[in-house]
């Protein structure tokens, strides 16, 4: 993140701030709870190698501290650097999806990481690293609908998922292979175990959609329980990089203000990165401008890619570096619950199409 002077201005003591970071293969959210206390939702590292949350808070100087961490799920674009943050800030609570609360899951994770000798899916490695970082500190919290993060301020952070229906499915909800060996453990089914958050202070409300997908066990179960505060959300972190399989129009029709601040992160590992053109058109047509954090891969920007010439054995269109420059979308509320939005770095603002 470049550091123009405005970035270095910390929020007011009682000001709610929601800042979304995206790096092409990484998503993280920081929420200022008040009094220099922060909630971090997911984590990734900047190109400099530091967790983006740390990098951002270092701009402020002083004693800003992350007091709570939520790991929405264990896909590796949400988990890198989380253990480092835990070691540095020693938060009071670390939340993870309750479907992981099984001895067999822990055994599976550790055995899998050991048997693959450092080549296990990195989200799984991060999971084990986080467990090691918080061992014995009694700060582990199991997340599911109906529970709340202890903020220590008047900011309320409620968990809206995973739903009871999903939790009832137990290990099957994880889509994990339970025999040690080979398998893509952090496979897409982990998205549906995601922790969705509702962050509010007075009338300023934000919905952080994690990677939760649509469907009976996903957004339908969340929305059927009704709006947490009765007040609409005016900041929405669009779920799962704006993909069509996470699209749920009811989020906007039932839970959002008419013109919320919509923000999303790119996901560039796919041949066609998310959000795609159709996704952007759909989202902007529904709810107005869309802030997109993270930059398109060089190959799609018409720029050359510095790469091993020998990999021409592979499909060149499939070659895509995973990590790119960081984009940051900062929203700060005022006393009336309105938000000021400041984009920094690799951020694109997509406007609704004017063609009919």
């Amino acid at each position, binding site marked *: 993140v470049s550091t123009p002077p405005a970035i270095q201005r910390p929020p007011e003591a009682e000001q709610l701030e929601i800042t979304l970071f995206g790096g092409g*293969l990484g998503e993280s959210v920081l929420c200022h709870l008040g009094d220099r206390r922060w909630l971090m939702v997911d984590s990734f*590292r900047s190109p400099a190698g530091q967790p983006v949350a740390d990098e951002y808070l270092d701009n402020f100087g002083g004693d800003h501290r992350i007091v709570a961490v939520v790991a929405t799920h264990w896909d*590796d674009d949400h988990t*890198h650097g989380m253990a480092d943050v835990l070691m540095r800030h020693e938060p009071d609570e670390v939340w993870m999806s309750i479907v992981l609360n099984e*001895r067999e899951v*822990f*055994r*599976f*994770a*550790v*055995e899998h990481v*050991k*048997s*693959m*000798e*450092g*080549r296990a*899916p*990195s989200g799984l*490695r991060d999971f*084990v690293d986080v*467990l*090691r970082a*918080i*061992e*014995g500190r*009694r700060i*582990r919290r199991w997340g599911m609908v109906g529970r709340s993060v202890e903020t220590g301020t008047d900011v309320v952070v409620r968990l809206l998922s995973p739903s009871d229906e999903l939790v009832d499915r137990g290990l099957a909800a994880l889509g994990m292979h339970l025999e*040690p*060996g*080979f*398998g*893509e453990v952090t496979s897409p089914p982990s998205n549906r175990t995601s922790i969705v958050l509702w962050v509010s202070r007075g009338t300023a409300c934000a919905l952080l959609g994690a990677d939760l997908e649509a469907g009976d066990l996903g957004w339908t179960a969340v929305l059927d329980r009704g709006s947490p505060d009765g007040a609409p959300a005016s900041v929405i972190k669009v779920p799962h990089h704006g993909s069509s399989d996470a699209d749920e129009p009811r989020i906007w029709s039932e839970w959002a203000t008419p013109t919320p601040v919509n923000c999303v992160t790119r996901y560039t*590992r796919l*041949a066609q990165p998310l959000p795609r053109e159709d996704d952007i058109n759909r989202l902007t047509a529904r709810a107005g401008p869309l802030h997109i954090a993270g930059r398109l891969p060089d190959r799609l920007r018409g720029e050359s890619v510095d790469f*091993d*010439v*020998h*990999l*021409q*054995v*592979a*499909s060149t*269109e*499939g*070659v*895509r*570096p*995973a*990590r790119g420059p960081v984009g940051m979308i900062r929203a700060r509320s005022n006393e009336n619950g309105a938000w000021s939005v400041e984009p920094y770095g690799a951020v694109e603002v997509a406007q609704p199409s004017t063609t009919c």
Partner: protein
Amino acid sequence: MNQAATDFPALERTLGREQGLGVLHGLPSSDSALPPEHLGEERDAWFLLVEDVSSRLGMLAGHFGDRGLVALQRRVAIAAGQRRSMLWFGTRAARQCGYLASGWRKPTNRRTSEEFVREREYVGRVRDVDREKGTFTAILGRQPDDSEGEFVVTFSQRLLDSKQIDRLGPGVIFTLVTGYRRTVDVSGRVVKTALDSRVFLHEPRTLTPAQREDARRLADRLFDNE
């Protein structure tokens, strides 16, 4: 091979046509041009031996025109080439997958042979396989633990032999070695060079009972000691 590797000075003294060949005959029939694992720091001496033997055999073969000697020299020359390319260092997968038996050292004719010069090595994890298109997509990294330096590449299954294709599946780990394939004649002159890369699927690794017990103990501790 072990005798040759550990008794190089003696071999050097005796490397005449008869005695030398008698000792050296163990080299191509020993199943591998790899230095024995037990050698440790003596691996360099082993490689020096191979290069020296290659040179001497080349002269002998040229002088006597012995067909067996030519074949032996070719075999040793390839081993020497592998030494130069460092192909075998750190390529555990290549050993596990029987790399020697599957590829590089086949002679193109009696006067030339192929050698491989390694350029880079990657470790990958198969993400998905498209058998209809004959491709597979993998997450690739330059360093085994550099998960954030990963990138995604789609490969043709033509990089694999039929046995490897059967084993291909999500989650399988492999080593990708990129480099040059060179055709060299008996004098060591390069007559042809082409880009070449190979994929070696790793054998599934399972924990030993003791390792698994350790892992379970750690997992249980992490689970119970919140």
